[in-house]
């Protein structure tokens, strides 16, 4: 891979990593990064349920009715997130329900805010001149190829080189399950490997544990992140239903997906078959051993 400039900041309780080719002017890179990170910090202040006086905390406990958001300094953004949550609730037939998170149930849009805001931060980076970059918001990734649209390209001009996105193996920390080549688009992963079961299943009133990890890839991080979270929530009720929903999602929207269950079995939508069956990080002979180790771990656990 070509050398890149990188910057990392800790925001939203996670690390946000930015990478761009080192051919980008250092000052342009610094200014763009400052703008994107600054925006994400501001989003964190508005949407954090962990800050008692954030607008979201006040919405959750009733101090700030949605009807009062007209004229609120962040009203437009909050309503956009509320609309996104409503769309995902409908799309997932209630499996993802930002209004029924926690005990007692309350409004918590955490499952979508990171992807939504990173999508916007990535657009800011492009607007500041860093048009080829990777923005990784704690495992949810937005990638831009920096290529011109086909109509503007000179004859014979090569397409931008795809970025290579490694998907973590939740059962083998530090190792890669598959590699997706992505020039332009998003790869979002929700799972239990890092924070335990933290995605709420509104049907059972308990954290969703049917799948260990769901990865969704498609054009926009806002949607990819939301779909991944929704599938995790849905799997809390039925893994088969979650897979059927992801299959349908791929057919109607093009957003492809890959899941890993608690014993290490993988499933993927038709569009990812070619990638998921290639054990990129392992030699062929290591695969059975690794699978056996995962199975042994699951059996002993």
């Amino acid at each position, binding site marked *: 891979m070509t050398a890149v400039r990188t910057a990392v900041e800790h925001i939203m309780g996670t690390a946000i990593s930015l990478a761009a080719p080192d051919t980008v002017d250092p000052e342009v890179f610094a200014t763009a990064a400052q703008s994107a990170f600054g925006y994400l910090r501001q989003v964190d202040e508005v949407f954090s349920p962990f800050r008692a006086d954030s607008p979201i905390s006040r919405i959750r406990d009733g101090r700030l009715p949605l009807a009062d958001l007209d004229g609120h300094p962040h009203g437009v953004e909050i309503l956009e997130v509320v609309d996104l949550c409503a769309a995902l609730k409908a799309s997932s037939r209630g499996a993802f329900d930002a209004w029924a998170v926690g005990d007692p149930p309350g409004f918590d849009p955490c499952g979508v805010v990171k992807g939504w805001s990173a999508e916007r931060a990535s657009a800011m980076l492009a607007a500041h001149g860093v048009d080829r970059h990777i923005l990784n918001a704690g495992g949810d990734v937005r990638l831009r190829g920096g290529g011109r649209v086909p109509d503007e390209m000179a004859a014979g001009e090569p397409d931008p080189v795809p970025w290579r996105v490694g998907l973590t193996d939740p059962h083998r920390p*530090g190792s890669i399950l598959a590699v997706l080549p992505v020039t332009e688009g998003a790869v979002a992963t929700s799972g239990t490997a890092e924070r335990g079961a933290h995605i709420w299943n509104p049907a059972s009133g308990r954290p969703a544990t049917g799948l260990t990890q769901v990865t969704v890839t498609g054009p926009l991080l806002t949607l990819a992140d939301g779909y991944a979270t929704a599938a995790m929530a849905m799997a809390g009720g039925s893994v088969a239903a979650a897979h059927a929903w992801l299959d349908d999602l791929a057919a109607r929207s093009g957003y492809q997906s890959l899941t890993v269950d608690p014993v290490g079995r993988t499933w993927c939508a038709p569009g990812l078959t070619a990638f998921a069956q290639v054990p990129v990080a392992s030699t062929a002979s290591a695969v059975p051993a690794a699978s056996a180790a995962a199975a042994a771990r699951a059996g002993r656990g």
Partner: protein
Amino acid sequence: MRRTTLALVATSVGVAAVVGVKAQTAGAPRSALAGGVPTGDQGPSGPETGTGSPAPAVSASLPSSAHGSFTGSAIGTQYGTVQVRAVIEDGKLTDVVVLQQTDVGARSGQIDSFALPVLKSEALAAQSADIDVVSGASYTSAGYAQSLQAALDAAGR
């Protein structure tokens, strides 16, 4: 609990790697490569960066000429203290030397002797997969320090 964690701690001036395992006491330094031998310090030690507290903003760019071994700080895990040294050659992680790990308890020791070389080879395999970025379950700010993404950020790949 048998979770074994490969941890790569990134700093702006060096790379320190930490492998978290079931650890109770310090063992003799040894390479995590099967058959590896203990090595002495061959380069600058990294700063004593703990993983327990969120790191400050890091802007790292490790030139491809980066070379040397970097010693991670001793990290207290729920199983005990562990410490490793990362060896970087031409900007690539080439070895992970275990400085502190458990050698107490037959069962625990057995798992360690199995887990460390396996983890190590997987970490290197991931690097050889030549990836630009890692998508995975959202890590915490502290967990990031142990992530493969942190290693990629530090290496400036």
